[in-house]
């Protein structure tokens, strides 16, 4: 048993729903109690989908448990096939139905349906959403892909984009364009937008582009093994990664590839002098493994930030993220416990967080700007505008995303110089964010786990003298937390009992870079 406040991932059947909802002509019959229908709103509200997810829930109740939940499942199956006329169905159980052991797979098999029935075994008490999506897509591919000749022209499939994915809609479009510029046509995109018939045509492509390893890797490996289709290992998020990806595609199709980079603005935006203020900004990264790995490279090599912490919530990516962290000289944080992430961020006091909607919340509480780079995300992270992450346009979009939460370069100086101006004071936050005001020590709920942890008194009774404390308040909000922490650490190291004005400035000199 583990106490959880917020979760990064839903249960595995929600992963299966992400695949089913992404596809067309597929239906998911889910043995589940009525409350589980909440999952529809993830798609209709958060992602603003205009169709119900293609899911039939059996919605069994307590009174059904003694009698015949198996018949209920079969009726739901029959009704779904008649009503929605799918090309194939996937069947499975949610956490509660797993406990009553009705065996949806076996039941569906005995029904003699004329369409393929793909059973899912998704252990709800061990695994999570990304596993559910990856496993579901793999089962669908394994059941439906047929041996066939390769297309005459060089083609590839794009594997991994799902419903509720982070920018998958636009990534597919950008990637398709990029591949087309490279002379490679896309055979099938799956699961997003694919029908079961399309899945059967996957082996016609010459290779696979793995856009989302979290949700497509098992299928990609299976296709490599059974249909001799190599797949790309680099996800083209960022300037360097996109160039490497192009080289990787060139290796696969054994052709040197040249590409027009005229649409790529990011490198100049980053080199231009206004971006100088980005240099060495201390950033903390947390999210799914793929996006964190890509953004670590962008942060360090393309934005000039200093990466002070790296982590991911999906254990499946623990190994590569640990290796990456080592490369960056930091400790990897592999956890799905939101409170642990919050504690790590507080301890590191970064100047910026690249994270998920959870880290945005943490950043709001701690007064640290946050850019969202990974699922899970909120309704405002499904933008109407075109905003891919992959390819050259993706790199442009990411540059904008990463600088938007920050105070602009000259503004930083002005805030320091005129901090008492009644309109232009630091508590007002970045001037391009209307109504924004970081709340360092307030919490609308009147209490929280983390607030408890934060209020712990300083060890060894270090006291801030009033002149030092007044001076601290003059330091702009976006560096105040770091200044406080640095000074306290410095005082502790020096064995000081009191922090005076001098201590503050000695610490500043000590940490100057």
């Amino acid at each position, binding site marked *: *048993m*583990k*106490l*959880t*406040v*917020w*979760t990064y*991932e*839903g*249960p595995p*059947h929600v992963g299966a729903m992400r695949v089913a909802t992404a596809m067309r002509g597929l239906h998911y019959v889910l043995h589940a*109690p*009525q*409350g*589980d*229908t*909440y*999952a*529809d*709103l*993830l798609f*209709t*509200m*958060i992602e*603003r*989908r*205009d*169709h*119900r997810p293609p899911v039939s829930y*059996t*919605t*069994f*109740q*307590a009174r*059904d448990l003694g009698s015949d939940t198996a018949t209920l499942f079969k009726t*739901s199956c029959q*009704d779904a096939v008649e009503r929605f006329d799918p090309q194939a169905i996937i069947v499975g159980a949610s*956490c*509660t139905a797993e*406990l*009553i052991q009705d065996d949806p797979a076996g039941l569906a098999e005995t029904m003699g349906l004329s369409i393929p029935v793909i059973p899912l075994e998704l*252990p*709800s*008490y*061990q695994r*999570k959403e990304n596993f559910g999506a990856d496993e579901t897509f793999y089962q669908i591919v394994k059941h439906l892909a047929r041996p066939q000749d390769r297309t005459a022209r060089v083609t590839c499939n794009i594997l991994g984009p799902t419903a509720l994915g982070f920018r998958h809609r636009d990534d597919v479009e950008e990637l398709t364009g990029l591949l087309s510029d490279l002379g490679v046509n896309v055979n099938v995109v799956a699961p997003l937008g694919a029908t079961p018939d399309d899945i059967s045509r996957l082996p016609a492509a010459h290779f696979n582009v793995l856009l989302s390893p979290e949700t497509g890797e098992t299928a990609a490996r299976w296709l490599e093994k059974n249909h001799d289709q190599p797949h790309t290992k680099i996800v083209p998020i960022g300037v360097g990664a996109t160039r490497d990806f192009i080289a990787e595609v060139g290796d696969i199709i054994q052709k040197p590839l040249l590409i027009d980079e005229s649409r790529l603005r990011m490198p100049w935006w980053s080199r231009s002098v206004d971006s100088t203020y980005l240099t060495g900004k201390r950033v903390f990264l947390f999210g799914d493994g793929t996006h964190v790995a890509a953004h670590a490279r962008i942060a360090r090599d393309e934005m000039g930030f200093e990466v002070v912490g790296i982590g991911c919530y999906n254990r499946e990516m623990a190994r590569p993220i640990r290796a990456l962290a080592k490369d960056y000289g930091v400790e990897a944080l592999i956890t799905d416990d939101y409170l642990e992430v919050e504690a790590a961020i507080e301890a590191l006091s970064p100047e910026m967080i690249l994270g998920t*909607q959870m880290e945005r*919340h943490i950043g709001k*509480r701690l007064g640290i700007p946050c850019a969202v780079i990974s699922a899970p995300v*909120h309704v405002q992270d499904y933008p109407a505008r075109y905003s891919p992450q992959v390819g050259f346009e993706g790199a442009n979009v990411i540059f904008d995303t990463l600088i938007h939460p920050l105070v602009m370069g000259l503004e930083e100086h002005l805030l320091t110089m005129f901090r008492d101006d009644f309109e232009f004071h630091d508590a007002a936050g970045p001037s391009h964010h209307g109504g924004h005001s970081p709340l360092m020590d307030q*919490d*609308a*709920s*009147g*209490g*929280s*786990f*983390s*607030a*408890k942890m934060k209020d712990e008194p300083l060890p060894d009774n270090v006291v801030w003298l009033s002149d030092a404390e007044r001076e601290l308040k003059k330091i702009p909000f976006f560096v105040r937390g770091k200044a406080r922490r640095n000074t306290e650490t410095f005082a502790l190291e020096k064995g000081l009992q009191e922090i005076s004005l001098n201590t503050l400035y000695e610490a500043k000199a000590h940490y100057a870079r």
Partner: protein
Amino acid sequence: MNAPMPPTNGGCRNAPVLKERGQREVFCGLTGIIWLHRKMQDAFFLVVGSRTCAHLLQSAAGVMIFAEPRFGTAILEESDLAGLADAHDELDREVARLLERRPDIRQLFLVGSCPSEVIKIDLARAAERLSQVHAPHVRVLNYSGSGIETTFTQGEDACLASMVPVLKDTTARELLVVGALPDVVEDQMMSLLDDLGVGPVRLLPARRIDETTAVGSNTVFALTQPFLGDTHAALERRGARHIAAPFPFGDEGTTAWLRAVATEFGVSEATFEAVTAAPRARARKAITQASEALRGKSVFFFPDSQLEIPLARFLTRECGMTAVEVGSPYIHDALHGPDLDLLPAGPQISEGQDVDKQLARARAARPDLTVCGLGLANPLEAEGLSTKWAIELVFTPVHFYEQAGDLAGLFSRPLRRKSVLQLEAAE
């Protein structure tokens, strides 16, 4: 006298009810935690459940808010499923850790879920044990918010019902008002009752554990929410008597509700008029303005919160709408009867759900406004129907006179929006 006139064509109390069983597109009772944990400021809600439960709470709440919560989920893992003795030890450990970190917590609710019910973790026993361990500082109660037993707002019902047996005894003649209301609405209601000279008035749920809510054979109680069937039964078991009334939505519902209470407490007609005349006039004026877009329009209710019948009464009688179908997850005559009496005959009354069949009826009827859950709203909008998400009706202050106009506004906004947007491509 301003008693509401029953409809000339007869009401709906004896109308045939279409009872359906099929796929139900509703939340489970855990959802109630989203507003209950804000209402009871010293309470923590600990769901004993699965990752799905945690995800539901996050998603149901996350659509609207993302704040630090006073609720959490003790997620069952593979090892907990193996042996039940372990599950109790684990629960004790998690509760001890939680209470240590949160000394401000005075009431802890252990909330049962689908998995905890199916594997039969005895949370009543756990609550008893933990109460002994953590008394007197913390009181531990339990209820089920599981989706195999409860629908959406029934979670609040189960929570309040779990509190009834531990309420102090009283022999005083008191009015107990039952149902979680937004604080601002509760204050308005208390002031109206005070002006009427009705009292003492106690509240369930109280904002804090130390408040003096008690119950006994001289207690009379009024419900402010139409989904409190179990709480109603539990209070009657304690000897309290229910004041049956339409629910306090709109001018007419609020007046009828207050009048039932006033009659019970012998308030004079003159006092009643003096107290209610001004807010009634304001409510009527506000409704008239806000309901302009609703007059002559049709409305279709999918079952969601059990608020459907009182709201259909409000929309048909005070906003000039016609109800096509009024679906409710459950219909409880003692609670919904007074509103059904006033709802003009005509609409199909339905209980339970088979969502695809009901969607087919809605598509055939093409109502001007469809009241439905979050999972259905955007898909129906995409089909050209205007919708109002039902969950907003539970989260927004809508009761009593001063909110009557806002309530009408919640329904008219989707229609007004449709009329102001000029987004269709030229022919």
